[in-house]
């Protein structure tokens, strides 16, 4: 009598399988939840930054409008015009006028960045009355490099 071997599932096999499946599902669930949460937080931070940038850009446009109106008011007489250019900083404390007729504006964007706008003011009677030379987001916090590790040795 040659009996074929019988394969029996022992007691506890289903428990072990269930524990394995539940552990796998829990790990996957926690990982996907953590990823989704991190993505949402990143989107939120980006949203805050974009809002801050466009708020600063809107303030810059409003100041540029005031500067242009002041330049138009100054007329075409070079002396009056030059005097008006030098007093542009009276419009707002954020306006800085340099000796070379460059007007600089700076608006904070978050804690570490600022929107820098530089205008080159033209001569009296010229149009356009100003040219935007720079409209850029710059870092205002000094970057501190981490030199604690030697990554590559020069031979």
């Amino acid at each position, binding site marked *: 009598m040659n009996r074929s071997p019988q394969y029996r599932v022992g*007691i506890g096999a289903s428990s072990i399988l269930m524990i394995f499946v539940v552990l796998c599902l829990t790990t996957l669930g926690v990982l*996907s939840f953590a990823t989704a949460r991190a993505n*949402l937080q990143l989107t939120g931070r980006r949203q805050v930054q974009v809002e801050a940038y466009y708020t600063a850009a809107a303030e810059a*446009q409003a100041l540029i*409008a005031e500067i242009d109106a002041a330049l138009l008011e100054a007329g075409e007489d070079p002396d009056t015009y030059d005097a008006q250019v030098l007093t542009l900083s009276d419009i707002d404390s954020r306006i800085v006028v340099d000796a070379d007729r460059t007007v600089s504006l700076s608006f904070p964007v978050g804690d570490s960045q600022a929107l820098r706008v530089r205008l080159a003011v033209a001569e009296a009677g010229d149009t356009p009355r100003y040219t935007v030379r720079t409209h850029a987001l710059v870092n205002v916090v000094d970057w501190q490099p981490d030199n604690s590790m030697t990554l590559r040795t020069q031979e």
Partner: protein
Amino acid sequence: MNGTRRPNSMLVELVIVILFFAISASVILQLFVAAGARSAQSTTDTAALLMAEDFAERFAASKLPADSFLEADGFAQDGDTYMRTAEAGKRTLTLAVTGENEDTGAGVLDALHLAIHDQERAVLTLPVSRYLPREDMP
């Protein structure tokens, strides 16, 4: 005797395993649902952000008056507000623009306010301003 006890204990074990698995699965399913909801919200918010930036940059580059620009961009006027909808994946976002313009004599300052809603939820509000000197106007 041993033969009858074994199937019984296996049956009891299977019932316990199925019960425990059902409870665990329901908890894990909730975790997956929450992750899916957060992921969907993140996708919608990112799409809204891109739409807002796109709108702001196109408006800044345009020399058209604000109302003409908005009409050309598919916005319909509803009182003081210009509105249009946009698809973001499976969601439909509503873009609403309000604002005012100020003639400074030297040019026109358009100060718009863009708000994006996902049904009842306010996703984003963005100030969008553009100063156009009179010489640059079409």
